[in-house]
């Protein structure tokens, strides 16, 4: 098994700790809207650790999927085979997501700004060059609007955590407090941006993302240098608890199964 960068047999690498932190953030959630990739890893890890009863809802129509291995795509056959119910894609979005039945949504991002707004559409490459094309919105605008709360997962780097989005695909907290209510967005919006260095959370008063948690050994300065705006820190910055052996074992089992099947 080749563990992720910086990891050893008993210590987690930064990516692994990011994944484990994402799974931990699902503790207490009943239902989670799952995209493929890291969100699926985190949600399936949560089912094996912090949230055994977590109901996974995939936009492909599987409600209550209980995959025995990490699905390789959002339409993996295992999802339908293990689901409590398989419904149409319009039904997932209308009755289940917009219907307000989902506690947590996960989103990835190419760019996140200081109010946790998200760009997954295009990247400005400067004058005279056409913008670089990204995949687009997918389910993100309505996931961010309608889930009870949203977790963003992104690598901690200035090109991802930017002062200004090149395109606003998905509203997090708009330009600050009250914007979500003004736009009539039912959910609480992003409550955490989970990175490979730590966690940013919106300040309760300003809705600006501030540093609230660092992985062991990571300094505030390093996190600041990896953020595209002048990153503030919360009154207390905690240290991410190292993974338990159970967490690390469960994560590595999940990922090695997926690798073998590839």
């Amino acid at each position: 098994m080749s563990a992720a960068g910086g990891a050893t047999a008993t210590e987690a690498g930064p990516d692994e700790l990011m994944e484990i932190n994402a799974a931990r953030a699902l503790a207490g959630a009943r239902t989670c809207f799952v995209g493929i990739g890291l969100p699926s890893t985190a949600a399936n890890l949560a089912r094996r650790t912090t949230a055994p009863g977590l109901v996974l809802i995939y936009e492909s129509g599987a409600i209550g999927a209980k995959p025995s291995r990490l699905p390789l795509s959002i339409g993996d056959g295992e999802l339908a085979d293990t689901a409590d119910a398989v419904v149409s894609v319009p039904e997932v979005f209308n009755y289940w997501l917009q219907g307000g039945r989902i506690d947590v949504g996960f989103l990835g991002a190419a760019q996140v700004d200081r109010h946790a707004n998200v760009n997954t559409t295009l990247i400005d490459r400067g004058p005279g060059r056409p913008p670089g094309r990204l995949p687009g919105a997918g389910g993100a605008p309505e996931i961010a609007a309608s889930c009870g709360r949203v977790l963003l997962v992104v690598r901690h780097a200035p090109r991802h955590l930017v002062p200004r989005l090149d395109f606003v695909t998905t509203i997090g907290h708009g330009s600050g407090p009250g914007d979500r209510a003004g736009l009539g967005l039912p959910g609480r919006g992003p409550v955490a941006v989970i990175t490979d260095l730590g966690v940013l959370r919106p300040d309760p008063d300003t809705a600006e993302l501030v540093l609230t948690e660092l992985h062991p050994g990571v300094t505030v300065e390093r996190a600041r240098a990896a953020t595209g705006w002048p990153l503030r820190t919360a009154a207390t910055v905690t240290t991410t608890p190292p993974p338990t052996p159970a967490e690390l074992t469960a994560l590595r089992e999940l990922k090695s199964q997926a690798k073998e099947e590839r």
Partner: protein
Amino acid sequence: MADIRDLREAVGELIHDGDTVAMEGFTHLIPYAAAHEVIRQGITDLTLVRMTPDVIYDQLIGAGLVAKLVFSWGGNPGVGSLHRFRDAVENGWPRPLELDEHSHAGMANRYVAGASGLPFAVLRGYRGGDMPERSATISTVTCPFTGEELAAVAALTPDVTVIHAQQADRAGNVRLWGLTGVQKEAVLAARRVLVTVEEIVDELTPRPGGLTLPGWVVDAVAEVPGGAHPSYAAGYSTRDNAYYRDWDAVSRDRAAFTVWLETEVGAGVRAVRR
């Protein structure tokens, strides 16, 4: 009742230059064989519609047959970018590609409106972002009861919808199961419908979680075993994940793609006709 046809004939009769075509399937049951037949016949100037234009549309776009793409997420699932799609959008190769871009919820509801014979659908979506100002098919309506302003999206009514299913009977009744995505809506929204199937059977067996499309809403059924490869057909095949991974290298390079197109599909890249 649907005609049971040869794939080549069915594609030639049902899909024409300039058509708006939806080929649907959410990772599962993607109608690759039909798309390759479109490429072989050089049917061009297409407006393609699909929630998740993955490798199947990368191939059609790279072949130069697509004038416009209506979509909500364009990537190679679990792998990365669609390089032919990016090359067309960013560099206009082999031709410029116009986009009409939505969210998944918006696209799904656009099919629902089409299937329902309505000109638009309503959702609580798109709020606050930059997408509505880039699309002529996103607008708003106000609830006459509460005053809430909601998003309105224009109905999708493709000239042709193409799907792949597991089975059909000899009257053209189609049965699919597993993740069935937005296929029913895409079929019912379309003016013409082509279904490729793994197998034509004497009698369709009822099966949990499946859905049946009556033959009288389908124009043609073609038996194409493996017609969803490299995607999969639950009960018949599994997803060829290596194909999706390998596509990344093939599609990154125009020359490698062109070779692929000639050797694997038997077609060349088309210049823009108009």
